[in-house]
C-alpha cells in the first residue's frame, strides 16, 4: 500500500502522533493515530522519534516524514508534560536552536544565508518611514534593571 503523507501532528491525550495521509490506490484521505508509549517528561526525543520511525506497524506510514519533524513533535509532547504550552515549546525550540551557534565562525556564504533567514523576521517587524505611525526618535522606557528578573544567560558557569 502506497502512503502519501499529507500532514503530521500530535495529540496530547493520550500522547500520540497523528498522520493524515492519502492511500494512493483508493485516493482516499485517512487519519492514523500512533500512540507514543512509555514517554515521560524526561524522555529522549530523538530516540523516541527514531523508535516510531522504525516501528513494525507504524514505521512505513512515516516514510515521507523526516526524523527532524518527528523529533520536534516529540519535543512539543515532552514540553507539554513539563507544563509548557505549544507556543512556549516552539519558542524554546527556536531559541535553543539559534542561541548556541557562533556565527562568527561561518563562511561568508553561510553567514549571508543565516542573515537572510533573520531578515524575514526583521522585515515582518519593520516600521517604514512611510508608515503613518512612524516615529524617527522612538524612545521606550523599560523597567529599571534592579526590578527585572535575572536572565538565565548570567547563571551559567563562565563569569564576566
Amino acid at each position, binding site marked *: 500500500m502506497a502512503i502519501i503523507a499529507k500532514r503530521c501532528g500530535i495529540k496530547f491525550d493520550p500522547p500520540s502522533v497523528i498522520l493524515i495521509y492519502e492511500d494512493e490506490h483508493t485516493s482516499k484521505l485517512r487519519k492514523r493515530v500512533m500512540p507514543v508509549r512509555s514517554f515521560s517528561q524526561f524522555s529522549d526525543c530523538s530516540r523516541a522519534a527514531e523508535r516510531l520511525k522504525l516501528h513494525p506497524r507504524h514505521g512505513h506510514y512515516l516514510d515521507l516524514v523526516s526524523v527532524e519533524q518527528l523529533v520536534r513533535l516529540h519535543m512539543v509532547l515532552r514540553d507539554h508534560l513539563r507544563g509548557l504550552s505549544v507556543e512556549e515549546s516552539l519558542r524554546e525550540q527556536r531559541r535553543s536552536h539559534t542561541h548556541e551557534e557562533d556565527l562568527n565562525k561561518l563562511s561568508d556564504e553561510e553567514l549571508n544565508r543565516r542573515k537572510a533567514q533573520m531578515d524575514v523576521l526583521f522585515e515582518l517587524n519593520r516600521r517604514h518611514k512611510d508608515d503613518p505611525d*512612524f516615529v524617527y526618535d522612538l524612545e*521606550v522606557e523599560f523597567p529599571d534593571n534592579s526590578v527585572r528578573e535575572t536572565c538565565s544567560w548570567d547563571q551559567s558557569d563562565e563569569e564576566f
Partner: protein
Amino acid sequence: MAGDMKRIPELEQEKYDADEQVKIICLGDSAVGKSKLMERFLMDGYRPQQLSTYALTLYKYTTTINGRPVLVDFWDTAGQECFQSMHPSYYFKAHACIMVFDVQRKVTYKNLSNWYKELREYRPEIPCLVVANKIDADMRMTQKSFNFAKKQGLPFYFVSAADGTNVVKVFKDAINMALSYKKNSSDFMDVVMRELENFDLERKEESAYEEEEEEEEGRAD
C-alpha cells in the same frame, strides 16, 4: 594590511584630533544587527563608504551640538568578526564605542566580554554603550536583567533596529558621550597626544619627530 590603514586617504585618522570631529566604533558578533542599527539611525541620509580591502564600512554623519557643527564618523565592521578580533587601527583614536548583542542568541551576549576586553586594551577610557538588539523578536527579554553592563558600569539599552525602539537615543547618547570624552579625556595617551600638539616645537624639530613616528609605525607592522 596592518598599519598602512592610516596612510590611505579615506582613513586619514589625524582628522579625529580636530575639536569638531569624533570617531565612534561599533563592536559585536556577526549578524547582531550593527549595520541595521546604523541604517535605521541614518535613514535615507546615509552614504556608507565600503572599504572592503579593510573589511570596514564608514558612515559619515553631520549634526549640530550646542550650535556647533559636529562631524561623526561611525566605523562598522564588514566581516572582521570572523577573526574574533579587530585590527588595532579600528580602535585608534576612537572616542566612543557601541557594543551590540542579539537578545535571540546567547553566544553574542557571552562574547561581549571578549570584545570588551579587546576594546579596553586599546582604549581603556572611552565611553562604551551596551545595546541589546532585536527586542521586537522577543519582548519578554526586556523583563530580564543583564549583568554584564551593570558589572562593568556601562549604560545599557534595549533596542530594535526593525521597529526603531531607542535606536536614535543610543546614537545621540553615543555622540554626546564621545564629545564629552574628547573634551575631558583623562586617558594617558590622549593627554600625551594633546600635550605634544600644544607643545610649541621648532619647525625643524617637529619634522624630525614626525619622521621618527613614521619609523615607529613601520616597525610595529
